[in-house]
């Protein structure tokens, strides 16, 4: 059996590849990429991001064996032979822990098992997809909204600007976390709803930036020249101003990804995170609150999830900085 959703990851990877290929033909991006290639830390970070992406990709490609069975991803199939134990067991241990009568384990678990006896390594790897979806889907929601409204406000000014500014000032004056919590309480739980709520809270900052940049470009000579040649507003915005906004927007979006991924863990603590069936680092870290208080201390769940989260966020931070330095050396800190 074949599932149409399993095409999406291929589409995403293909589109990204095409976009990068296309961008590299332009001098600005070609130069930026040559600068990044010289930055060793950035290359390490990029490799890490690609590795996480690879795991997420392997976890996203899924199909059904027959009509009635649930769809299983490649990752599920790799770990299919891993037996589910009764309860917690330490990394590489031979028996379960935390129960009066330890039982011998059926399989070897590199990172141990959690309270339900599931392999921690498998759970950690499953978190990659969730984290990248939260980063990616949220950006897909907030970016078009911010670009559209920001460019309209900056370009047309006057009443349009006033209206859009009022809209985002109202949203912005509610502290981010409170708006996020309110939206999620009203929308309900779920990965897609988290992305929507995060999108609604994060587009404001981006929109403000886009508006300011558009305002700067609106009166430049090249825009005025295009106007006097009779180019339509739509074409000026999409063909002339947008490409000039992209460097700033890409820097901000890349640096923002780490924050989005981190917020998943915080939402899990507030019991507004993804459901337990969706593998997520936030849920694993949340479970560790109780586990650390037990005797013997059950530390591996916390360590695995938080280091997976830490490494990905670190990579995005470092790569975001590298992109910023490569595209706009004036901003170098």
């Amino acid at each position, binding site marked *: 059996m074949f599932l149409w959703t399993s095409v999406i990851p291929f589409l995403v990877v293909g589109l990204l590849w095409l976009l990068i290929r296309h961008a590299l033909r332009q001098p600005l991006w070609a130069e930026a990429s040559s600068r990044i290639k010289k930055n060793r830390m950035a290359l390490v970070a990029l490799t890490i991001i690609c590795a996480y992406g690879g795991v997420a990709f392997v976890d996203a490609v899924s199909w059904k064996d027959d009509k009635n069975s649930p769809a299983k991803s490649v990752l599920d199939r790799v770990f299919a032979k891993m037996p589910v134990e009764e309860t917690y067991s330490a990394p590489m241990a031979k028996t379960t822990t935390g129960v009066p009568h330890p039982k011998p384990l059926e399989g070897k678990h590199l990172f141990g098992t959690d309270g339900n006896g599931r392999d921690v390594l498998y759970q950690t790897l499953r978190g990659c997809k969730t984290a990248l979806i939260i980063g990616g889907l949220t950006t897909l929601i907030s970016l078009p909204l911010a670009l559209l409204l920001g460019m309209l406000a900056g370009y047309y000014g006057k009443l349009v600007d006033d209206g859009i500014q*009022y809209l985002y*000032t*109202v*949203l912005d*004056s*509610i*502290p*981010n*976390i*409170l*708006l996020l*919590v*309110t*939206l999620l*309480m*009203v929308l309900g739980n779920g990965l897609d709803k988290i992305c929507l709520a995060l999108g609604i809270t994060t587009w404001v900052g981006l929109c403000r930036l886009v508006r300011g940049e558009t305002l700067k470009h609106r009166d430049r000579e090249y825009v005025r020249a295009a106007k006097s040649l009779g180019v339509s507003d739509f074409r000026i915005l999409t063909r002339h101003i947008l490409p000039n906004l992209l460097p700033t927007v890409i820097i901000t979006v890349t640096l923002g990804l*780490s924050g989005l991924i*981190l917020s998943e*863990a*915080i939402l899990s*603590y*507030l*019991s*507004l995170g993804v459901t337990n069936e969706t593998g997520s680092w936030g849920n694993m*870290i*949340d479970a*560790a*609150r109780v586990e*650390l*208080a037990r005797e013997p*201390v059950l530390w591996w769940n*916390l360590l695995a999830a*938080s280091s997976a*989260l*830490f*490494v990905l*966020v*670190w990579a995005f*931070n*470092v790569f975001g*900085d590298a992109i910023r330095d490569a595209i706009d050396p004036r901003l170098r*800190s």
Partner: protein
Amino acid sequence: MLRYVLRRLLYAVPIILGVALLTFLLFYSTSTPEQMAVRGLSAKNPTQDQIQAWIVQHGYDKSKSEQFKKHVGEMFLFRFGKSDITGESIGARIREGALPSALVAGLIFSGSVFAGIVLALVAAYYRGTYMDRLITLTCVLLMSIVSIVYIIVGQYTLSKVLKLFPVAGFADGLEAWKFVMLPFIVGVVSGLGRSVRLYRTFMLEEMNQDYVRTARAKGVGEKSILFKHVLKNAMIPIITSVVLSIPFIFLGNLLVESFFGIPGLGGMMVDAITNQDFAVVRAMVFLGTLLYIVGAILTDVCYALVDPRVRLE
């Protein structure tokens, strides 16, 4: 100055009205009165009559515009009503929780600003050397750890293993310091990476200004340049970023307070979220927004006090 403050306050009115409308739409229009009644009466397995009585009692049978007027009026008069779940007065709980919250938030806030500025000064003083590189690399590492992990690990190592502080709780009066220390340390450390990196950028920007070169040419010492010239000018962007980070303090407080059992507003908010207590969340959103707007006005005023180039008119 007074005129400016008044104008800013007037400008805030339509914004607050917008927030009131937004919260009204979110809370009142997405669920029907019946659903809210069932939620409000949850434990009692309500009959149809009870639901109807609840709706009439809470005024949900009136028209939407009347409900909105009531909502706005109550918010502006700080009449927050009663909790959906426990039935306690929200206003009284906010008054109780404000002091512990202000204590913890204020300490964390001033501690992290102070530590951030000191470390950023060190990094700026040794700019370009290994010391600077070490500080910036550590900052990125610190920024990449989620705040919950700081809290969990801090609580585990400092109070469970080293037994330096009580695990959680709160006491009134001077005894409070024991309970406040752990949240204080965790709160300051978790925000350090971001602030040091930001402040360092501000300071390095000032380092490249002409007046610094002039000062050096006059023969002013490097230390004096850093503390007298650069620090004063770097304070302007630092003040802005400090106030912009107030919502993040609120976030930190939510987690820190509920984790360490401090009976403040943040802990109350987390309880309300887990219990789906819409009335409390509504009140907190409005209060948080108000604080944020007041904070923004205060920043602009501080801005004018620090920087004589900024004119308020």
